[in-house]
């Protein structure tokens, strides 16, 4: 891992505060994510990790603070513009389109690149068919990468949990994001599935150069794959740095071991 100085920040969060009906979820958090790294956000339950991701891609609008992504600064990110700028996302509680097949779910990840209008779609003329076939190719590459060939036409609702998570990753990947936000990508998985998933994450990071921000509880995995760890507790940042560095930080140790919540 390189030292932070010679790396370019892709995401800069400055003094973010978020509250719901007066209840503070995130207080004054700032951190940077560097281009091409795997950054883990860790912390006990209720530490504000998911809220943090929701702020980054505009699902929640923070009361204070600014976000800048890829050099552009925002006080108010919108989910749509986040997607347009190249922020992909998976959710803690799988947010797949349950009525659609694996293929269609991943295809829907490419909607931003499809330009045909609904007249073309209805008559299956012009760009409609051509785009559909082009993007199918790209989606099939993702299906192959994630090993989903045998279930491509299966409705996602009938899949096992671990596979659903994989499909969700595929959908996010289909948009060719510059940065991927993964909310507990390995939660509730068997050991083997976890191993697969962390391989996928590392391969995505290495092969496509995608910056990855992930929330994960499994410390083993976090230590293994992260370049950079940010620790939250009670909506505040208590640690930020290289994995081993952070793990030796007293506040972090307290939050995890000493003080029970």
């Amino acid at each position, binding site marked *: 891992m390189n030292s932070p100085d010679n790396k370019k920040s892709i995401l800069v969060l400055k003094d973010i505060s978020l509250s719901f009906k007066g209840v503070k979820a995130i207080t004054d958090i700032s951190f940077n994510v560097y281009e091409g790294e795997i950054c883990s956000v860790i912390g006990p339950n209720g530490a504000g990790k998911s809220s943090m991701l929701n702020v980054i891609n505009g699902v929640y609008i923070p009361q204070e603070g600014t976000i800048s992504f890829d050099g552009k600064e925002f006080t108010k990110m919108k989910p749509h513009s986040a997607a347009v700028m190249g922020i992909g996302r998976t959710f803690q509680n799988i947010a797949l*389109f349950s009525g659609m097949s694996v293929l*269609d779910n991943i295809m*829907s990840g490419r909607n*931003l690149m499809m330009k045909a209008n*609904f007249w073309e779609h209805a008559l*299956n003329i012009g760009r409609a068919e051509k785009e*559909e*076939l082009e993007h*199918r190719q790209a989606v099939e590459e993702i299906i192959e990468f994630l090993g989903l060939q045998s279930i491509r036409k299966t409705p996602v609702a009938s899949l096992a949990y671990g596979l659903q998570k994989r499909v969700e990753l595929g959908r996010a990947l289909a948009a060719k994001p510059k940065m991927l936000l993964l909310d507990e990508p390995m939660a509730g998985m068997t050991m083997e599935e976890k191993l697969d998933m962390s391989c996928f994450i590392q391969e995505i990071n290495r092969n496509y150069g995608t910056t990855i921000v992930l929330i994960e509880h499994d410390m083993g995995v976090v230590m293994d794959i992260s370049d950079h760890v940010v620790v939250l507790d009670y909506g505040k940042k208590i640690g930020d740095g290289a994995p081993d560095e952070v793990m030796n930080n007293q506040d972090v140790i307290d939050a995890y071991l000493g003080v029970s919540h």
Partner: protein
Amino acid sequence: MFYREAGKLVGSFGKDRRMLPLLEDRWLAVLFVAFMYFVVTAIASDYMFTAILIPIMVLGVATLGLNIAVGYTGQLSLGTAGFMCFGAFSAFNLILRIDWMTIPLAFFLSGMIAGGVGIIFGLPSLRIKGFYLIVSTLAAQFFAEWVFNAYPWFLNYTSSGVVSLPMHHYRVFPGQENTPFNAAFWYSSQGRYLVTLTVTILLVLACKNLVRSNTGRNWMAVRDMDIAAKVIGIPVAKTKLMAFFISTFYCGVAGAMYCYCYIGNLDFMIFNLRRSFLVMFMVIVGGLGSILGSFLGAIFVYAWPILITRGSDFIFGGGAIDTAFIENNSKIVVGTIIIVLLIREPGGFAALWSSSKQKLRVWPFAQ
């Protein structure tokens, strides 16, 4: 059993996304369409055309339209009959007031007009979600019922409130008078049937194309999980409005066909809330988010009372059972079926259909 799938290789993405992936289905579809065009046209009776085939197709198209909003996009709508009303009146006024207007063009334009109205009443969906949205489409329904009554211009100042559509309105293509396919032909039940059948097939094909395209995926994404849809960049607002537009386009065309092809006159009274609910029943019974289901639902809900009547006529002799009984009976049956289906098979008849088809595909095994 019936399907033979071994040795059927798919060699391109184009073939893989065919409307009907199974060879046997494609044959059935071709045979069915041919049958509808050549055999049915030749042999069906006037009663068959006007009391069974045409209304089922017309209501099927309306059901399909509603299904686009409710089944595919998850936007509750109770204004179907209202939107049909807009379509019907648009078609009438277009044909009445523009000399060169033909039926196909008028149908298309009335769909567009209804679609425009649909967009207006769909606008609140951008802010209002879930059950609250019902208010907007009900407003549309009641507005339609009111506006065509309040402004007699729409009815060409006919005092009775019902206009019988004249034969010269039935212009399908310019210069048709010197051909066998003149206004009298199109005015006949056979001609109306052919128009209805063609429009229905075109609309079904277009809908099938839509739902397997990006548009369709966006609809379903919004339906299944709109937050996730937003996060992956689907323009949720545009998607909803487009769904409303296309949904009401279908309803509008269905409304126009209802008057021109089915009842032969124009009457705002028939496009009441009750009819909206009837179409909603067709959606539920047929199956949410299914094209085939839309027609199965239309067939069942529409044909049940007819079946009872015919059956009783057959068993007890004509007129033995009064119409009120039949009406009540069909309400009870349809109501029960809706509840039972919702509890047992939320996918409606379409789900029953596809599961029996699946059984055929894995025959003799169970899964």
